[in-house]
């Protein structure tokens, strides 16, 4: 586990199947925290490959308010999230943009990725409401988790 970085992700989407694949699928595109017996034995038989990848811990919410609460809790505990992934439309609660605005009040630098099937908010408007532009991006669904994982890593490094 030496040299492995861990990203702490907060994801919010009101669509339950999407929330599930965030929770179940997304970690597959990051390095594992622990090796299984099979991996240990394989490493022993065929040589150990040092995993320099980034591991991840995933927290998933179904509403914007819950995401804001989770973010503030983590911030107060001294272990803040590294990247936030938000759906734009999350009825019946606040939208992802409104949640992001609240998060920006507490943290002006945490990267925020908007993932939406359809947004009536334009990117310039997002950049205005959730600055800075370099710490925010918008992607349309459907997106492959591998691409999302790459984007998360990229945004985390900015």
């Amino acid at each position, binding site marked *: 586990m030496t040299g492995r970085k861990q990203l702490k992700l907060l994801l919010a989407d009101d*669509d339950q*199947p*999407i929330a*599930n*694949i965030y929770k179940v*699928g997304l970690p*597959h595109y990051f390095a594992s925290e622990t090796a*299984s*017996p*099979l991996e240990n*034995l*394989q490493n*022993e*038989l*065929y040589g150990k490959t040092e995993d320099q990848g980034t591991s991840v811990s995933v927290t998933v919410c179904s509403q914007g308010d819950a995401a804001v609460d989770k973010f503030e809790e983590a911030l107060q505990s001294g272990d803040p999230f590294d990247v936030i992934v938000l759906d734009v*439309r999350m009825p019946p609660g606040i939208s992802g943009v409104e949640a992001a605005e609240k998060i920006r009040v507490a943290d002006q630098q945490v990267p925020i990725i908007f993932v*939406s*099937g*359809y947004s*009536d908010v334009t990117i310039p408007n997002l950049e205005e409401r959730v600055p800075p532009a370099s710490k925010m991006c918008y992607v*349309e*669904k*459907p*997106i*492959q*988790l*591998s691409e999302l994982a790459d984007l998360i890593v990229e945004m985390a490094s900015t």
Partner: protein
Amino acid sequence: MNLHKNISLTLVGVVAVFAVGSYFALSKTLIPAFDSLEMASAERDMNRVLSGLSSYSRQLSYASTDWSQWDETYAFVEGQNPSFESENLELDSLVALGLNVMAIYDLSGMPTWDMFAETDSEITEPVAESIIDGTTLQKLQHFDSPTDAILGLVRSGRGSMMVMARPITHSDKSGPVVGTLIMGRLLDESRVADLREITKVALDITEPSAADRARRREGGHDFLGLPEQTVSDDSRVTRKILYDVHDDAIAVLTVESPRHITGLRRDTVTTLIVLFAALGAFIVVGLSHALNRIVVRPVSALRQKMVEIEQEGDLSERVNLQRTDEIGDLSEAFDSMLQELEDARTQHIDQSFKAGMAEVAAGTLHNVRNALMPILNHVVMARDTAAGSKDNNARRAIDELISGDVAPDRREKLLQFLQLARAESDEECRSVLGNLGLANDQLDHVIAILKDQDKYTHADPVLERVNVAELIQGAAAVIPASDDLSIDLQVAGSVSDCIVHAHRVGLLQVFNNVFLNAYESIARTKAATGSIAVLARIDDDIEDRKVHITIHDSGAGIDPDALKHVFDRGYTSKDENTGGLGLHWSANAIASMGGKMSAFSAGKGLGAEIHVILKTA
């Protein structure tokens, strides 16, 4: 109450007020004026009679002056002229002077000579007590000076008589007075007839009534009392009481003036009232007709059009009164307002339709994309799992075991590794199946979304009156302006008259598609110029009137085999695959409006025609 009835009643009221006002005006001005004229006429009649009586008194005065201031008479009274009687005092003298009485008295009051004769009679007699009583004679012989004279009426035994008494003096009026000369003229029927003839006035002199006799004299002069008038239907009677020398009423002079002026007044007023009535009726009818034509009819037409528009909701209707007055301005303003309303409604419908489409599209996009994301990732995860790297190491372990050249402890670890790999492989298989199952569930979700959207496709489009010319003009804007290709758009036929029953936005989209296809087809010929010709005409079908719109382009044309499939879903003649939904959707849209769409081309390189047939509105 409608406008026409209201105006008519108002006019009748105005004319009625005018008639009543006119009547009162006539009563206050014309009728009194006529009455004054009539009174004046009656006064004139009386004055003419009085003038006649004055002429009698003047004659008496002249004659009595001549005879009383004559030396011959003077000498006769003194008894010095005995021939005077035979030469002058005879009946002919009385007749010549128009007298009934002539008497000469000496200072003792005894008659020197006297004669009385009835008018037109040759019988004479002395002026006895029965003719003029003694008291009256005494009064007539009492003078204050030699030039004094007494004129008056006396009651004689033969009726009222006008008398003149003068003292007898020398010709130079010097005295001493030696006697009195009295001349009298009866106011009998003959004299009254003469007066009537002279004055042309209906007059009479009659005996006074007991009441007249009993009345005390009030005003007047000489023998005449004050005039009194009485009015009957036919005449206005003026009467004066005549007084004798003792101021006793002895006769009544009556002058009857026929009321010709009243008759004239009655005729005049009747004529004026008839004229006013006729004028009022003419004004009512004329104004009513004029107001009906100028105001009521246009306002009714405006109202009728408003009612029609309210009932039918057709904002394309116009009043168009073609007038230059305020009602025309109102009509024009109303038409202008209708135009704005129509434009606003059209814009509202268009925007509502677009907003609705945008809302549906946004919702569908959101739901489908959300549903696709798990599908995509479950499939990818299944794929990645199936292609996991651990399988390669298991194959290596098997190869090692088969080779037999393996240390026992390694062999043991290899076998253990294979067992664990097998177990993980089983787990991966389950994972793949699980992911595919979840992907399948999400596909069902996508299908459900599509079914949910399907219900909107069965909603009937809102059809309205659509002007084809306007849509053609609007659709022409989609033809790209390019330096490499110049398009000549020609519109022919009675396109401006073509009003169809269609869905405006849908039909506009159809024309957009057709124009874009035509442009792209022309562009594929690599020509620098091309043409798109639109022809619209109205076909009178047996059952229905239809608008036939033909859009011809000079483009690449369509192969006869391909022509059969131009309206198929997915068909495209373009090099790149754009989905081919344009003509397929257009044909469906036209069909949903109750119309038909077809295509024709003589072949490749010969251009193409799109025909759209719709019902007229």
